């Protein structure tokens, strides 16, 4: 499996990271090096093996389905790059 420039650009888009056109060839090459390393996994016989879900066999604890937290608007907005009138502010999303 070899990553071409188009795939590298698509992955960058999916990851929402702006990558300038001229940086794509080097990025694709790095992807290929890493994926080449990962390809070794193809040698392993995984027939009938379950993919790991949890490293320690444990049943997640249950709790009552009730509100346990909240009413912290000021704390939640305290670190926002742009907060106005109790909301996070972002560029216009819908025309």
């Amino acid at each position, binding site marked *: 499996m070899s*990553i071409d420039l188009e*795939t590298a650009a698509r*992955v*960058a888009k*999916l*990851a*929402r*990271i*702006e*990558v300038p056109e001229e940086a794509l060839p080097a*990025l694709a090459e*790095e*992807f290929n*090096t*890493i*994926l080449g*390393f*990962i*390809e*070794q*996994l*193809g*040698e*392993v016989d*995984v027939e009938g*093996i*379950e*993919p*790991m*879900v*949890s*490293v*320690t066999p*444990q049943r*997640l*604890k249950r*709790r009552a389905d009730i509100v346990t937290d909240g009413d*912290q608007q000021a*704390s*939640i907005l*305290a*670190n*926002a*790059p*742009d907060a106005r009138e109790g909301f*996070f502010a*972002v*560029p*216009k*999303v819908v025309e």
Partner: protein
Amino acid sequence: MTDLNALTIAEARDALRKGNVTSKDLTEACLKAIEGAGVLGAFVHHTPDLAMAQAAAADARLQSGAEAPAMCGIPLGIKDLFCTKGVASQAGSRILEGFKPEYESTVSASLFDAGAVMLGKLNMDEFAMGSSNETSVYGNAVNPWKVDARQLTPGGSSGGSASAVAADLCLGATGTDTGGSIRQPAAFTGITGIKPTYGRCSRWGIVAFASSLDQAGPMTKTVRDAAIMLEAMCGHDPKDSTSADLPVPNFEAMLTGDVRGKTIGIPREYRMDGMPGEIEKLWADGTAMMKDAGAKIVDISLPHTKYALPAYYVIAPAEASSNLARYDGVRYGHRARLAPGDGITEMYEKTRAEGFGPEVQRRVMIGTYVLSAGFYDAYYNRARKVRTLIKRDFDLVFADGVDAILTPATPSAAFGLGEMAGADPVQMYLNDVFTVTVNLAGLPGISVPAGLDKQGLPLGLQLIGRPWEEGDLLNCAYALETAAGFVAKPGKWW
């Protein structure tokens, strides 16, 4: 008399309880040491006022007559990955510039409840992704060990923690370990570091890298200190659903040094091609020490070891790509300056391009790729199946009666900062070849300094224990530490 900042946690605790020293004295000694050690780049956010206030409170508690916890009054450094209320917590990244959490991580809160003192925040690789502390937005942390003109890496990702403890800037430090980030830097700096069983320490309030692998742990000057500090960091937390609801033993009380009748496994797959002779000799010496201490040595096989790193470099980036999706310039941290007409997608893309460094960008994109439609089964699911096999390898040897496994901690001693700059990313990943299996299997692992190489740099050995048996593991490590008798300290050049 030893400088106060050079004391171990156990020594300081005993002196505090006897009233021979105050937390104020200890804290002042550490703050002074930190002031003179800027070149090490270990502390990146300084909190001297908070430290002195916590020290005063600890002294009052110690004098109140009631038995104070062991960590009461002990000055620590906290890795930048831990959210600390009102104190910058950036995970070594530009994207969290200016972020001051409104809350305290469970682990740091437990330490502070026990009376520990925070001197400041410690340098680390960006989002804990790196093995040399060279991906940090703050610049490099530097190893206090120096044998020639070069500055050496303290390892990573907990490089600042390792450097600070080895240079006696604090009595202990918190670290986190996703693929070796406590044990590799501990080995590179001649200190002790333990990653407990997955689920021992709450992950709540620790900036997430790969949630199924991340664990916090202590980095200390001795095994005894690791036992004392680990106990204060562990415990069930309802805010982390993977945190184990199990009693936390008194780990220090389990340090008898008696390993007679214990079975120590030596895994043949860890004897890598091209392993330096010195590492091989250290490993053989450590094996002989455990044997002399009365342990039974057995050769074991962990056949899927070779596939641990490739599996890790699918699973960890996949989880990271998901965890790091939250850094979007909306709720906290950096937001890029936008051009006229830019919409929300441009805001995300520019913010993340400016905020994440190259290694983090690379891993987020690899993670995105292995999870994308058409590749999910071939990469991600296959890696999770291989992870099942890696854990099974360990389950089988433990079922055969092995109590702990002895391996080298790292494939080399500390290397020079910048020396790996020209190498491809995979070369750097190989640093974690002996440690990463332990994260994939969720096991406890500890790195103990065991000797010096011919240049005079420290080397570490790793012991791997059964799940939840940190006490037994620490006792094996204590026996190894006693036999190795490693007492060397870096000469002060900074």
